[in-house]
Every structure is written in structure tokens, then in C-alpha cells.
């Protein structure tokens, strides 16, 4: 981990200022560039209206909501088991992680706790969806700065993790596996051996990405000092996850507030990077993927035996009350605020999804950068559109 020199950072800022000065002197005319809603670089339908002066961005206006599906409202007319099917589709790349905070919130209201084996398996699948999610980011980041091959590597190796998730839950993308009071089913025979093999493979993939993307001088030139988020500004915009850890804030809900998850039973580390630039965010995510594979390995080592479901009535009626549970999802902190009036259905569900907050910093962050850097910075912020629009 090496910090960028101030010289590099300053030279970029100086170039920005010089260009801005030239634009003023020449009295150049601005141009509005519409990036999205359909554009190869925005995974989904995020629209970015960029006011350009030459290749320099004067102002940026992210427009979201093109894919709004109204899950908060839909959840009000779905029973608790049905809601998990909906919220699977929020962050569709690591979807098991979406279910967990909601289920935990419901469990807190019902005052049940999942048996240890269920918690263990839940944590394993949670970390696995993190790997499935961030693997994609690692390849996609390469693609966004112009290298095609890492994306293929990402899809190639992510497949193994998805196969594991499918072998347990039955669904590759939408597991719908978490239940109030436990999980739906136990692990199938032979799964643990297979998982260990795949985790080794994923560490190899991380090495490959490190050699192919992270170590590449061109990649570093493109990402170092680009899109620097100071820690205080990042926090005030509500950034979370690797985006804020890339700015040097040592904050991970998995370690600091582990409700119903057993990460702290293992020996693991929260990675941070002091720079706060695009490279730092990439670096932190790469280390986190490695760390996740290690967490899974350790959890498999001491997987307790026992039941997987607590005693829960067949028809779930959640007692009246309010609960807010947040977890460290692949994209950042995701929380569910569940209000129940003692009905079959929740009275209100507020979803705090990470990407919505992460993307809200763009107008501040993209001011003054060049057009190619818009894409680099957006890619490094890493959002899944379903997570923004819900």
C-alpha cells in the first residue's frame, strides 16, 4: 500500500485549473453531454447530464429513477416471507446479502434468534454474495478504463461462486433462502469441499486481477489521484462500504455492530486505504474479496452442528414495533427500517440502500474532472442500479 505523492495530485489539479483558465480566456461555449440512460458505461439506466467545457466537466447532474420499482410500497402488501423475494432484486449481483438485514429486523421484532448453524451458514452465504458482487466490480473496473479481458475473467470465476450459491439455495441470482428464525435448508453433502476449492480459485483470481489491472501502470495513471474523496466529505454525503474505507475511515458494520452475523468469530481484518481516490477504492475492494474468502474458509472450519430453524409459527405475524437493522453489504451499508402493526404484512419498510448514498456525491466529485475520468470515478464508486432506484 503506497500513498500517492502530493505532486501527482497537485499536477492533476493544476491541469484542471489551467484548462478552466483557458476556457475562460477563449470564451468557449459549453456543451451538454447526456450520458445515459442508455449508455455502455452505466450499468443500468443511470443518466448523467454533464455540462462540459471542452473535455472538462463544469457541472454534473445525476438523474435516477428510471428503474424505480416501488419496492417499499410493494412490501406493504406482501407478507414477510414474500418480501424477501422482492428485496432479492435490489442489488441483483449479490442478492443474498439484501435479504439478511430485512430478516434480521423481522427477527428482532419477533424476538427470535436463528440457531448457530443457521447464523453460520447465513454468514457464509452473505460473504459469498459479497465475493460474487465484488468480483464483478474488479473486472468491470478494468473494462471501464479500457481493458476488456478482466471483465471476462470476472464472469468466468464468478460463475463458480454462483454455482455454489445455486447448489445451496436453488437460485443463482435470487436465492430467497433466508427465513425468519433461520434458513430454508441445510447445506448439501460435498458442498464444503467444493467451497474450499472455489475459495482457493477466487484467491487466484484476485492475484490475476492484481497482476492484470492493479499493477498495471496505465491503470494506476488513470485512477491514482482521480476522484479524491476526503473522509469528512465522504461521511457527510453518507458514503459507506469500500468507498468510505478507501478514504481511510475504519468503519465496517460487520465488525462494529454484528447483529445476527458471526464475522467476529473469525480472525479477519478491515482494510482501509488513506488516499480516497479511485485506486484506493479498487484496492480496498480487492483486499476485501481476499478477506471474504478467508472468512468463509474459517467459518467452514468451525461450522457448528444443530438445527437450522428456530421455533417460528407457520403463519408469521410480526408483533407491533419498529426495528432498524443495517449490515455491511457488498455495496456499502444497507439497512431496513421495518414498522409492524402486528399484521401479516409490514406497515412500512424503509430501505436504506448503499448505492443511493454513494452516488449522491457525484455532483460534488465530478466537478472539474475530464470526460474520461467521469467513467473511471463512477466505476470506482461502484453502484448497482437496482440498489439506487429500488
Amino acid at each position, binding site marked *: 500500500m503506497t500513498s500517492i505523492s502530493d505532486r501527482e495530485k497537485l499536477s492533476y489539479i493544476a491541469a484542471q485549473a489551467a484548462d478552466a483558465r483557458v476556457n475562460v480566456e477563449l470564451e468557449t461555449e459549453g456543451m451538454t453531454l447526456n450520458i445515459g440512460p442508455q449508455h455502455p458505461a452505466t450499468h443500468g439506466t443511470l443518466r448523467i447530464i454533464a455540462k462540459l467545457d471542452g473535455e472538462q466537466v463544469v457541472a454534473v447532474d445525476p438523474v435516477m429513477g428510471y428503474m424505480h420499482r416501488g419496492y417499499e410500497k410493494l412490501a406493504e402488501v406482501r407478507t414477510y416471507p414474500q418480501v424477501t*423475494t422482492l428485496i432479492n432484486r435490489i442489488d441483483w449481483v449479490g442478492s443474498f446479502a439484501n435479504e439478511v438485514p430485512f430478516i434480521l429486523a423481522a427477527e428482532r421484532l419477533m424476538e427470535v434468534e436463528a440457531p448457530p448453524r443457521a447464523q453460520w451458514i447465513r454468514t457464509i452465504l452473505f460473504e459469498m454474495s459479497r465475493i460474487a458482487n465484488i468480483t464483478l466490480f474488479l473486472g468491470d473496473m478494468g473494462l471501464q478504463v479500457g481493458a476488456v479481458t478482466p471483465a471476462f475473467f470476472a464472469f468466468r470465476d464468478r460463475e463458480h461462486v454462483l454455482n455454489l450459491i445455486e447448489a445451496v439455495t436453488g437460485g443463482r441470482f435470487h436465492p430467497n433462502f433466508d427465513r425468519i428464525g433461520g434458513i430454508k435448508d441445510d447445506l*448439501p453433502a460435498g458442498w464444503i469441499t467444493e467451497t474450499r476449492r472455489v475459495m482457493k480459485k477466487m484467491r487466484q483470481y484476485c492475484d490475476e486481477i492484481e497482476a492484470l489491472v492493479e499493477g498495471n501502470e496505465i491503470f494506476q495513471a488513470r485512477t491514482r489521484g482521480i476522484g479524491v474523496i476526503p473522509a469528512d466529505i465522504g461521511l457527510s454525503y453518507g458514503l459507506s462500504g469500500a468507498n468510505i474505507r478507501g478514504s481511510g475511515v475504519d468503519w465496517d458494520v460487520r465488525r462494529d455492530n454484528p447483529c445476527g452475523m458471526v464475522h467476529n468469530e473469525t480472525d479477519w481484518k478491515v482494510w482501509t486505504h488513506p488516499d480516497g481516490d479511485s485506486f484506493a477504492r479498487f484496492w480496498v475492494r480487492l483486499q476485501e474479496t481476499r478477506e471474504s474468502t478467508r472468512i468463509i474458509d474459517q467459518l467452514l472450519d468451525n461450522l457448528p452442528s444443530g438445527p437450522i430453524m428456530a421455533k417460528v409459527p407457520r403463519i408469521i405475524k410480526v408483533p407491533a414495533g419498529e426495528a432498524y437493522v443495517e449490515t455491511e453489504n457488498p455495496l456499502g451499508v444497507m439497512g431496513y427500517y421495518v414498522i409492524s402493526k402486528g399484521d401479516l404484512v409490514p406497515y412500512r419498510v424503509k430501505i436504506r440502500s448503499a448505492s443511493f448514498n454513494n452516488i449522491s456525491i457525484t455532483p460534488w466529485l465530478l466537478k472539474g474532472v475530464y470526460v474520461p475520468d467521469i467513467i473511471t470515478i463512477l466505476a470506482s464508486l461502484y453502484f448497482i442500479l437496482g440498489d439506487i432506484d429500488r
Partner: protein
Amino acid sequence: MGLVPGLIKGLGVTGGTMLRTIFPDGLKKPIPNPVKGAETVQYPHEKESPPTRARGVIALHEENCTACMLCARECPDWCIYIEGHKEKAPPRRAGGKPRKVNAIDRFDIDFALCMFCGICVDVCPFDALFWSPEYEFSEPRIADLLHDKSRLAEWMETVPAFEAYEAGSEAKVKQVPPT
């Protein structure tokens, strides 16, 4: 620009992957065989077998169904249509009273709406619904995705036996009823 080796290492990764794909057997048998070396599968010619639990299509074991409507009610997007009637069945023991049983007239699942969440299979108290990992049932016309009870019953043949659990599990392995 910094040092050059990062670029060379990158070339090494892609070049190495290329060689591994072309020569999957390594130096022992340097015969180009990319079909084996590639991670992809040539789909219509060779097929991957999904895991036993894969949620491909829902199969109906008609004898077990009592038209209790639980699945239809619990379905998040209400894509199950059931109609049934009561009918008399011969008594279990000789000389007993004729039993009343529920018979289904209609059991349709609209796979164009289905989200493959598996709640119907979960809630069925009589083990009438099963997941089959079969995935090739796409249709040119969307209306044909509405599978009626005879079509759903056909899928029963493709339902695999439930697999054993990992050590330390207390769950009981369920049985698939013979068709």
C-alpha cells in the same frame, strides 16, 4: 509512467491464460485442445447439469394436491390458478363411509409471471409441488408458458431425488413420491 514490469505482468496473465486454454494438458501433452481448455460450454451441443436444488420448473404431483389454495395465496405475484371440487371416494376400509376428497379441475402456473421464488413449494403442506432443475421450456408464444396440470405433472419425471445433507445437519432428507 513508473516501472515497466506491471505492463509485462499483465501481458503474462493474458498470454498465460491463452496458452492454458490452447494446451489444457500442460507441457506433458502439448496438443492444442481449446475445446477442453476453455471454461465455456458450447450450449446446444453440450449441457451443464444444474445442481439438484436448482429452481428450474415446478412439477405437480397431482394425487397429493387437495386444492387447499395455500400456494395460490402465498404466491407473491399470484400466478397460480386453482379450481377444485369435492367428490366422493370409495371408503378406506370395507364397509366404511365414502370419503370426501378434494379433486382439482384446474392447476395452472403462469411461468411468464412466476418469479421462481419457491414459496409455493415451501408452503405446500401435502408435498404436491416439487422443483425440477429442468430449464428448457421457453416458448415462442407467451401464452404457452401457462402450464396446465398435465404439463406440470409431466415435469414430475425430471424431479431428482433430494440429496443428502452435509455432516452436522439435523434436517431430514425428504422423499420424492414415485410417479
